[in-house]
């Protein structure tokens, strides 16, 4: 945060004003989807865990428990409907995002290698250039998208299938639903940490709130998106060479 501000100050030194150049990143609908989905996810997690964790049993009991189950279903409708509404409103943007989220390149492998030193020790020299979403964000999106598909299938069968599907099938659905919950909620914990708590990761939250990101941040963290593949590669190679010579 401060680093970018420092750069911004240097840029603006002659003018004598602090100026950050903001560029658009997320559309209004994308942000509504993100926060609506987050709210539904949290409500689903809380109401679902009441049946999952033995220590939360007091909340699952009797009429209160029935209300919790109804709330879970209501939240499930929101959770399923929001992405569908978004797809109808912004089909091209959806396709673009989904494509970039599921695209894996060698930059992702290098990003994963550099991830620990970067996030733990702030070693930011020569991180592999990233597209509009970085590898971590992509992993989060993939886990949530695939998890949601599992939730939808198993959830609908558990909701409407009682008495229709064989009990063996139903039992598998219960276990899969729980496994999907474990994976997605664990992912959510990590996502929450990187997006809100981590000292370096200030820009993501700003982008998700206001839809914009600083050009300086985008240059460093989303070079592939900011510069395009060729220029990003040139810069990356140059940075790597520089880091190499620094070591020697």
């Amino acid at each position, binding site marked *: *945060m*401060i*680093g*970018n501000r*420092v*750069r911004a100050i240097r840029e603006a030194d002659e003018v004598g004003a602090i100026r950050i150049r903001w560029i658009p990143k997320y559309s209004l609908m994308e942000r509504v989807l993100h926060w609506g989905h987050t709210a539904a996810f949290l409500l689903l997690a809380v109401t679902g865990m009441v*049946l*999952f*964790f*033995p220590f939360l*049993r007091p909340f*699952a*009991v*009797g*009429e*209160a*428990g*029935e209300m*919790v*189950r*109804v709330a879970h*279903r209501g939240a499930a409708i929101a959770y399923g409907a929001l992405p569908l509404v978004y797809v109808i409103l912004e089909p091209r943007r959806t396709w673009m995002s989904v494509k970039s989220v599921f695209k894996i390149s060698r930059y992702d492998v290098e990003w994963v290698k550099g991830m620990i030193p970067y*996030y*733990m*020790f*702030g070693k*930011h020299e020569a991180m592999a250039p990233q597209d509009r979403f970085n590898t971590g964000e992509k992993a989060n999106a993939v886990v949530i998208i695939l998890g949601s598909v599992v939730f939808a299938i198993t959830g609908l069968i558990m*909701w*409407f299938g*009682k*008495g229709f599907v064989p*009990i*063996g099938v*139903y*039992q*598998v659905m*219960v*276990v899969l639903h*729980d*496994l999907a*919950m*474990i*994976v997605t*909620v*664990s992912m959510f*914990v*990590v996502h929450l*940490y990187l997006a809100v*708590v*981590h*000292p*370096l990761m200030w820009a993501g939250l700003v982008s998700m709130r206001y839809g914009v990101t600083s050009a300086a941040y985008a240059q*460093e963290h989303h070079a592939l998106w900011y510069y395009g593949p060729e220029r990003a590669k040139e810069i990356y190679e140059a940075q790597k060479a520089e880091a190499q010579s620094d070591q020697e």
Partner: protein
Amino acid sequence: MSRVAMLIDESICMACRGCQVACKQWNDLPAEQTTQRGTYENPPDRSAITWQLVRFREYVQGENLQWLFLTEGCFHCGTPACVAVCPTSALKQDPDLGIVTVESDLCNGCGYCTQFCPFDIPRRDADVLTGLGKAFKCHMCQDRVTNGLIPACVKTCPAGALDFGDRNEMLAKGKDRVEYLKQAGFPNANLYGEQEMGGLGRLYVLKERPSAYGLPEDPQYPVLEPVWQNVVQPLGTLAFGAAALGVLAFWAIARRNINMEEVE
């Protein structure tokens, strides 16, 4: 008191359905509006308000026709899967008598019991859309039994097909009866429930194989129950704990090591 059981002798049952009515009367359950389906079997299925039901089956073997009756109700398993999966502990097994009951005030209607019972016993009065409702089933008249009476269905049976008492006594009686039936020209006669599901609290003396009565020949405890309760649930706790602790550790390390002034 030790474990109790009902012994139902289907070779004596004449399908008067007195047990069905007595069950409704004692438990204050309303009648069901049904239509004539061309059979004495009525209502068509057990439900949240019909816990005991006599099934009528026409069993044809070559030239032989047998009319088989089966008084359906909860089996009160020795190892009840419904009790294991119930998230609210509404389903309980009496530690002495072995009777399995649902406590309505605790039940939230999740329906796991209906989906893990190998005999399809618990039934809900739940609305499909909202899922509001509760699970119900036969409780072997626990209220009567603990006060020195016998279950209402057993009390009312005019043929003496239903018997109730100490489980070992009932087993002995049932075995004697099976021996008698074998002598009397029912070579397939058998006692159902001695070993199944940890030993059932509802024992049947049957003239034919259990499958002829629509009973599972070898009811199995749901394999996924222990996987779910003993593996997946602790795994979840572990995963969340690991994620939370990992994040905390990362945060501590990152805070110490990242000099914000240097970052550009």
